[in-house]
């Protein structure tokens, strides 16, 4: 179950704890560091572009880490589940900053240009979709929301796999050629999505083998 520690010692929804605050602060260091560099003319000739890409890269990095938690647990038995919400929120915060820098620092709130970007350019539309889909996930990340939504919470949060695919496409399109970086991260994201799909399928089959078809389960 998401956000339930499986140790048996403490089978409750894990509260917002001290160590996750530390993780949040450490996770925001790359942004703070580059903001300081940029404000002090230490980011080279084109600082806004460097900062913008840096924030996007870290959003992707935290998304990869978030999606690694479950495979890690299944494959090694080692659970870092209590950090998943923090990592997911860090991905969201980096995506927010990435979009904010694009709108404010880069395009300087030039509304006609932004409107054309949002309506005509697949590269930016795909990236923006990925960001928008992260918003409901971030809004429902609080413990009370998890309790309240119950099973629907799990369904809703599967959106993260859609976000991962959209982010991969956006990331690949951000480079003029296919670079080791862009292909590497896109492959990692898509690989994690595929793994999750395969794992779910395997689970359903196993359950069917053991228990027979459940009511309402359609099998092909």
């Amino acid at each position, binding site marked *: 179950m998401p956000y339930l520690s499986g140790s048996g010692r403490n089978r409750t929804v894990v509260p917002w704890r001290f160590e996750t605050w530390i993780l949040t602060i450490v996770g925001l260091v790359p942004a703070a560091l580059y903001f300081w560099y940029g404000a002090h003319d230490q980011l080279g000739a084109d600082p806004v572009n460097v900062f913008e890409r840096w924030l996007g890269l870290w959003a992707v990095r935290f998304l990869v880490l978030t999606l690694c938690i479950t495979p890690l647990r299944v494959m090694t038995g080692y659970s870092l589940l209590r950090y998943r919400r923090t990592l997911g929120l860090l991905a969201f915060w980096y995506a927010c900053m990435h979009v904010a820098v694009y709108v404010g620092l880069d395009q300087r709130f030039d509304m006609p240009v932004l409107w054309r970007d949002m309506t005509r*350019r697949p590269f930016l539309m795909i990236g923006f979709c990925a960001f928008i889909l992260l918003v409901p996930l971030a809004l429902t990340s609080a413990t009370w929301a998890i309790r309240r939504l119950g099973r629907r919470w799990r369904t809703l949060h599967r959106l993260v796999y859609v976000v991962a695919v959209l982010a991969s496409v956006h990331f690949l399109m951000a480079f003029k050629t296919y670079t080791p970086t862009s292909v590497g991260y896109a492959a990692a994201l898509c690989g994690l999505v595929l793994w999750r799909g395969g794992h779910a399928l395997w689970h359903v089959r196993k359950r069917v083998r053991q228990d027979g078809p459940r009511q309402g389960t359609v099998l092909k």
Partner: protein
Amino acid sequence: MARWSYPRPSPTEITSHQAWMSRRRFLAASSIAMGGMMEQAARPAMAEGLRTRPGPFQAEEKPTPLTDVTHYNNFYEFGLGKSDPSTYASAFRPRPWTLSVEGLVAHPRVWDIDRLMAAMTLEERLYRMRCVEAWSMVIPWDGFALADLLKLAEPLGNARYVAFESVLRPEQMPGQQPGLDSLPWPYVEGLRIDEAMHPLTFLAVGLYGQTLPNQNGAPVRLVVPWKYGFKGIKSITRIRLVEQMPPTTWNRMNASEYGFFANVNPDVDHPRWSQATERVIGGGGFFGGGRKRTLMFNGYGEQVAGLYSQMDLRTYF
């Protein structure tokens, strides 16, 4: 009153002032060349001052600082990152170098770069440079009009395009080694003959009064200020006059994003971003450079708009 006379040379024999002045330049250039032969190893590191004079078409803007011009480069032969060229270009040897002018010309010739520089009158031009990636600089180039070189070769009547080819040296240029992100090498570019003969079209052999640094396309590169920067092919080895429109590297990579003409045009967007505005490179951190409106033909419309009066610039971007 005694009348006296002396034999005067006929007017055709009088050395023009320009040639007279260039004799000094020739002497200076040949002494530099000889000095260079003696200390070849030291050459690339130490940029020499060029004998250059102010030329026409001076932009009004403030020049971009030299460190930005030499450390923020797209030169994919050295790598995809903006700092890769300045990091890896020191292994590149821009001399000895030959530049071949060939194809549909009356006088094809293989020029030694130092002889070519001595033969030409070098002048400085402060040009705006607009990259297709929506950033811009203002650079004081030193060199000569491409037309001056082409006139020496005398293009034939059926020469309609000029094809340029860059250098192929994977051992000196890490970006040319095979890889996922590698382009088809060598880099090739092209111009229509009227674009090539336009007085704005420039071959640069220096910038900021110094010999062209390796990362900026040493020893000789094209500068076409009303077109996006990728038209400015670097480290040119071959200039060929041809009848058919030649292939160009970025157009071959992605024809929907990079056209043959690649004129700066704020109304024709790149599929992935707007070309209406540009980030001004020039330090100062986040709030230093800022953004400005991109001008049609990069502000050189008065000089070049006539070249395209019959063309739909949305189709031929």
